[in-house]
């Protein structure tokens, strides 16, 4: 890269470079436009939803209205508890399973791994009734655990981590063993640190998925004390009446803010992780 940059560029290359940059900006602007528009709507009175005036009076009223339409404070807490429970369990279960699939030989390994992969092909919606039945037999209907349970043994996570663990040289494993580390210690000291970017990338995918998940949480929970943010947002879906875009914008900005802020803070880490993990 540095060598290429130091060489004198031909005119064609320069033009190409320029075009590429222009393309990036164009796509970037197209991508951010809806977000900017919803920020505009959220901070202005409903009259300005479709009229652009640079100095239109700003207001926070939409946020107050949105906040009061549903118990969002509680919903934030529930969502936070939900995604942290899921994430912790997913990391533990997927790590252990992936380690077993990557480094151990046991009877029926291929078959079991195939079964795990089959889970990838099944839409969670298809299992709605069966999952409900299981959860109600466990007596867990209307709990935060119930919302997370079906997602904890994630086939995607197991697959992703197994592939990563397979790329880690056996020599490192052997070296750790020579130093006297047991299997779990080896996993903890060798595999997990080396797979860190994958954990970050997978964690982000998982968190954003469960932050946005609606149907299963709505079906399995009944009370304010367990329901997540997405259910609260549904209060604004009012097809029988006109839609109040400004309040909806305020509500969705409010509920996605933690994710947006988190992404901005850890942007560099995320981008690097995704480059290495090769997923999107």
């Amino acid at each position: 890269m540095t060598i290429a940059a130091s060489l004198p560029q031909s005119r064609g290359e320069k033009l190409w470079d320029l075009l590429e940059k222009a393309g990036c900006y164009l796509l970037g602007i197209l991508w951010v436009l809806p977000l900017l528009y919803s920020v505009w709507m959220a901070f202005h009175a409903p009259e300005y939803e479709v009229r652009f005036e640079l100095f239109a009076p700003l207001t926070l009223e939409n946020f107050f209205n949105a906040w009061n339409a549903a118990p969002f404070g509680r919903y934030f807490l529930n969502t936070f508890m939900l995604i942290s429970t899921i994430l912790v369990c997913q990391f533990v279960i997927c790590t252990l399973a992936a380690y077993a699939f990557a480094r151990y030989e046991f009877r029926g390994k291929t078959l079991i791994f195939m079964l795990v992969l089959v889970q990838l092909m099944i839409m969670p919606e298809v299992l709605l009734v069966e999952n409900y039945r299981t959860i109600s037999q466990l007596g867990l209907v209307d709990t935060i655990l119930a919302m997370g349970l079906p997602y904890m043994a994630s086939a995607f996570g197991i697959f992703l981590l197994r592939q990563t663990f397979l790329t880690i040289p056996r020599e490192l494993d052997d070296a750790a063993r020579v130093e006297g580390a047991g299997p779990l210690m080896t996993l903890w000291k060798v595999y997990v640190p080396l797979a860190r970017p994958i954990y970050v990338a997978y964690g982000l995918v998982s968190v954003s998925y469960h932050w946005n998940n609606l149907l299963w949480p709505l079906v399995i929970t009944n009370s304010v004390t367990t329901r997540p943010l997405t259910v609260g947002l549904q209060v604004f879906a009012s097809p029988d009446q006109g839609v109040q875009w400004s309040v909806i914008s305020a509500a969705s900005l409010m509920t996605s803010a933690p994710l947006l802020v988190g992404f901005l803070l850890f942007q560099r880490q995320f981008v690097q992780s995704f480059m290495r993990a090769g997923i999107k």
Partner: protein
Amino acid sequence: MKKTKRFFKASLPAFALLAMVAGAEAEPVEINFYYPVAIGGPVSKIFEGLIERFEEGHPDIKVNPIYSGTYSETFSKALTAYRAGQPPEVAVILSTDMFSLIDEDAIVPMEDFVKTDEDKAWLAGFNPVFMANSRSQDKTWGVPFQRGTTLFFWNKEAFKEVGLDPDKGPQNWEEVVDFATKLTKRDAGGNVERWGMQVPSSLTSYWLLQGYVAQNDGKIYEETGDKTYFDSPEVVEALQYWVDLAAKHKVMKPGVIEWATNPKDFFEGRAAMITTTSGNLTNIKTNAPFDFGVQILPEHKKRGAPTSGGNAYIFNDVEPQKQEAAFQFVKWLSMPEQSAEWSIKTGYIAARDDAWETDAMKAYVAEFPGAAVTREQIPYMVPELSTHENQRVARVIDDAIEAALTGGKPVDKALSDAQQEAERILKPYRD
């Protein structure tokens, strides 16, 4: 097999009642109530207030209100819970999903619980047109709750501007075209600044088509729920008229018009006349920055408009004692006073004549005459399209309407294709 089960169940509530009297001192009977939110505003709070009052009058019953998303999510949630063996005792679900619920054996008819003369009078008090979407095989499977209809709105200022009488909306199909032509405003470059007429077509567009078909003296389905008439001449003419508003007369925005933005276009003066749900009455009243008129839908061969909205259903496979409690709740909720209150606070139509005679309702109509327009339309209403596998059939006709409006298919072709498809879905239910 299922029939005998149901018959057996039907005789149980009598015992349940005895048990309830005997155990009056014991724990209150708890029932779960799923309700959807189809309009904006603090609906949850209104429900909580109603339930509090119900519980004061019925200390032996405790109602857990469970907000369950939109109508279709409520349907999924209730059916999932039912199949997993934990149905809610009561749920408000679209009236058009009645056949689907019956086919699943998920609900029980109200007749199982109606015993006293008072109960019978209550059940007879609903307006027949609303009951058409609640009854099948001589049984009442749910009672009307939060029903609506379509209304016609116009911008009085725009009327004045083009020299029309602002206090008189168009009364028939020809007048709509005539007025809309006058009201459509184009700038020098031929770009439209204001459309004369806008009819939403993004979702459940069959519903608006039904209005046109009723005005054209036809119908789009049989109330037994197993036959549609999508390709009948009345339906073809009706859809042709709708398509022509944009395609031939060029007085309506071409393509699909979104439900959600239609009222907005009206407020912003980009559409001079619109049709939309009666649920929008309060929205328009609060947000239109000009004087507006509201009336029932214009006529063609006659007046006509569809109903819409939900039913409160009592679920199957629930302890009889709980079903009985659920019945008490449903009955209380649809008494005249509560119907009137719900109607005033949300804009839905009270489905009972006696609700319109309550003092609260009379006072409301006196203060806001627009509210009475929905009642004026009741004699001309037709039930909403409701068949077996309703969501599939509705989808078929919606797609046909969209194809016709966007010019993808000619009207008659779109409708005959739709009829064929609907026939394929519904045939098994007739044999």
